[in-house]
């Protein structure tokens, strides 16, 4: 094992990728390392030949991955959206590792990103010494991917300013990148494509122009499908973070996590877990990541000011804060939830009391 904290997927799963390559007898699109079928198999895991096993990388719906891979086969760029904690980046990384054997051609989107990061920049020493020349050109990861026929990745696409985003239009539709300074253009090799990820419910993002939107096939990454799954994720993370923060050890409070995650899931989906009651949803994203943070702050409260056991009161304040974001509207949604769902639920009285007291305080 290397000294690197976290090696890229193609290194981490090198062995599996080689196994797949050997076993793969299906047609490969030009410049792909694996056939589409093998790519799906790499992500979803399962048996391979005799006694060989591929570890599953994605624990969701297989159809979604099939859809993603098919999109890349058809030459359309792929946009994975969804709220935080839905494995967008992880899937993008695994796809590019499986398809191109290289997941590092990556542009990290941010509000300060300049066009050069998507196109090319110059090596100024060379530029001054020799004037504009191909040697002085410093290609961006996207340009590199075009030249080598590989997958490029753009993280947090919607954080990039709109005018910079639009640089991608020509690249995606014409598959060329003009370099006017050198009076030339770079044409993408076969196998080039782009996988972008974006958070679709965050505030302060730059919506894609419809021209750019048209170049992408969009797949919305779903949240954990079942309550148990989400509880497991939250519990797992809460325990790990608790160790890092060196909070006093305590019994794993599964019951409280379950109640918290239930609230999150119900408000998010606009439906009670038993499917009987419909609810309004607040404006916030209520991602799994937020559930983790609510629980964590409750844990801190309990550890430092309570008896160490997370109780409803410890969760009420940060829970209210996460749900009530846009003032009156959200408050109303939350109050309705308290009055029509929580109040009637057996064994939830403490939660109801804690939360309604907290709203009263506000």
């Amino acid at each position, binding site marked *: 094992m290397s000294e690197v904290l976290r090696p890229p997927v193609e290194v981490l799963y090198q062995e599996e990728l080689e196994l797949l390559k050997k076993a793969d007898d299906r047609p490969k699109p030009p410049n792909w390392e694996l056939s*589409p*079928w093998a790519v*799906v198999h790499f992500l979803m895991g399962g048996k391979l030949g005799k006694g060989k096993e591929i570890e599953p990388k994605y624990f969701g719906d297989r*159809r979604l991955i*099939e*859809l993603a*891979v*098919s*999109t890349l*086969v*058809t030459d*359309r760029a792929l*946009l994975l*959206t969804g709220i935080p904690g839905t494995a967008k980046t992880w899937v993008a990384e695994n796809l590019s590792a499986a398809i191109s054997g290289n997941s590092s051609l990556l542009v990290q989107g941010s509000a300060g990103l300049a066009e050069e990061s998507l196109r090319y920049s110059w090596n100024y020493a060379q530029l001054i010494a020799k004037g504009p020349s191909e040697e002085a050109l410093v290609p961006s990861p996207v340009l590199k991917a075009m030249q080598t026929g590989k997958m490029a990745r753009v993280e947090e696409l919607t954080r990039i300013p709109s005018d910079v985003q639009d640089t991608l239009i020509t690249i995606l539709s014409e598959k060329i990148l003009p370099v006017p300074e050198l009076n030339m253009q770079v044409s993408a090799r076969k196998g080039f494509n782009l996988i972008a990820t974006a958070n679709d419910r965050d505030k302060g993002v730059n919506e894609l122009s*419809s021209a750019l*939107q*048209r170049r992408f*096939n*969009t*797949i*919305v990454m779903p949240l954990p499908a079942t309550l148990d799954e989400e509880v497991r994720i939250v519990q797992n993370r809460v325990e790990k973070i608790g160790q890092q923060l060196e909070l006093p050890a305590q019994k794993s409070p599964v019951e409280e996590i379950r109640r918290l995650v239930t609230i999150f899931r119900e408000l998010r989906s*606009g439906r009670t877990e038993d499917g*009987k*009651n*419909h*609810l*309004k949803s607040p404006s916030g994203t209520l991602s799994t990541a937020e559930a983790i943070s609510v629980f964590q702050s409750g844990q801190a409260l309990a550890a430092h000011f309570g008896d160490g056991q997370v109780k409803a009161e410890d969760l009420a304040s940060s829970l209210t804060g996460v749900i009530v974001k846009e003032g*009156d*509207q959200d408050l*109303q949604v939350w*109050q*309705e939830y308290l*009055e*029509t769902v929580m109040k009637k639920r057996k064994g939830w009285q403490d939660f109801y009391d804690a939360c309604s007291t907290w709203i009263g305080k506000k």
Partner: protein
Amino acid sequence: MKVFGIRHHGPGSAKRLSKALRAYQPDCLLIELPAGVEKALKYLGEPGLKPPVALLMYPVKDFQSGSFLPFAEFSPEWQAMKYALKKEIPIIPMDLPMGIQIDQSPVRRLSAVRTDPLGHLAKLAGFDDSERWWDVTFEQEEDDLAVFDMIEEMTLALREGALFDEPPLNIAREAYMRKALRKAIKDGHQRIAIVCGAWHTPALTQWESISAKSDNDRLRGLKKEKYEVSWIPWNYERLSFYSGYGAGVVSPAWYELLFRYRASISIRWMARAGRLLRQKGQDASPAHVLEAIRLADTLTALRDKPLPGLAELEEAAITVFCRGDRKLFDLIRKKMIIGQKSGKVPEKLTSVPLQKDFEQKVKSARLSPALKSSEAVKKELDLRKPTQLSASKLLHSLMILDIPWGKPMKGSQFKTGTFSEKWKLKWVPDYYVKIVQAAIYGNTIEEAALNKMKEKIQGTESLQELTELMDQSIKADVPEVIPELTTKMQELAALTKDILTLMEALPALVQVYKYGNQRNSETQFFKDIIEEIVPRIFVGLPSVCSGIEEEPAREVYKAMQRTHHALHLFNQPDLIEAWLKTLRILSNTKSVHLLIQGWSWRSLFDKQKVEPAAMERTMQAYLVTSQAPMYFTQWLEGFLSGSGLLLIHNPGFWKLLDRWIRQIPEDQFKTILPILRRTFSAFQGPERKKMLNMARFGSGLPAEKTKDEINEELAEMALSSVRKLLEI
């Protein structure tokens, strides 16, 4: 002879069957339809008969319990019959006739293979539902005529030649089929085509291995009831789920495309999705359609399927057109998946049980004269009398079925809870057609009204409409829909942001709850939904009342009054207590419109939640803080809200008001006068008379005795005396 195993409503089967029949050139068609439907089959050639249609079969004696046998254009049986008609060869229904009683009880537990053989095979092939597996395996292999042999072999293997290890009904049915086959052979037919469900194929191919005698023995002594048969129009919606005989299909619209445009199905489907989405304002250009088709094709290849299925097309459409958003696709889902086709049947071919039931009901409700009359007939019904109650139920049920024979007369409130209804009845011959069309919903008026109501409930997204539907259901006496109705109401109530709609729905709900109580019907559902709606109103009200203009405030004000009455009629102490708590919040919130603040104070005062002295102080405070008299007038209107008694019984209020009016500058007084007048003119005549006296002589003097006729004039006098007091 040749046996053609098909899947009912399988478009691939239909296509293949047509081809196979053309190749085989049969001289007779044996088909898996109940013997006895021949008399309906002879109308197959009628030009007016257009699928989807259904054969409706019902016992002559007990016509309510009929069953349907639907056919779409893509049903293999329909195609087979069309072929036979064209070639003028006889069509022989070979299945057990309707109305044969088979003892079903001693069925022992069957293995998984037997209870759901196709499901079992599908599972083995890695599919989670047999429908899809059949589609992929058989329906898509279009040109291969050998598929029929394959199907036969497969079922033979499944049944392991053990033809009698079946439920008694199936054994009897297959015995009957063989009997029909023997008869056809005896009649001299040489090339017999047998069209039946795939499962039955071995029973027929191996007919010689079973003796005619054993089959006859099996069928001997079965009692048979007399059945009537008729064609009725059907539609894709009804075809899309289980009803009566035979299984429904998941996606009639898809099957139709599969049947008609097999080669270009992806293009047709996707182009249609694109067009529908464009109509919904989505960005769905032909370029998108192309991309979506390419994606669906790739996906199909990736999944090792010969042709894109509905799943692939749908996923591709969602990804390309809807930016991954399923909800957008839901807008067109019904049109894309179920479709909207309705069949046609010439009027002369139909005689449906629903008609008979209707006629019977008309008779027993003593409405026959009204039915025969060509003039409009007026009728007042006393619901305490059973005959007239049944007439009322019938008329309301017909209204549900969109047959407005009776119309509620003006002035007749039709309030639930009263015992009298006034109707105007006018029969239009078109209504007979409507009854035939309604036969699709059931064989009795009740059943049809129930199913139609269910459809209406599914079709609406408006709380108000649901409230109306609820009212209709109660009056037509179809309580079976109540659970579904209240569930949907609950759903909409939870999602609506419009508190006013909830407030509008509440009084009606409470009325039905109370009325239901009188009729001993199931009222728990209403109680649940009321208790569900009310807290939502309480929570949402403060923001609804805040920062609004006068006009919407007036609307909310009226709705609040109705809510107030409804809650008191519902009479649940904790809800009333919570309501008063809400009013308390409203009365103390500055941003709430003054009209509503005033009314909230009044209600709290009436409920003795505010002491008179405190109320006086509050009024004083409002007087002082109102920057312009206009504002206070609004508060006052709400506070007095149509009754002046308050002022008469509380001299303190009167004096405050009196003093206030005196100090208003003249120009401002003119602007508030119309509002004051509106407030005061809403009072009862005697109240106004008394106030006039109070204004004239001070509140200490006893009032003159007055009569009721005093009204508008005296109000004017009151105002003119106020004017005098103010020396205008």
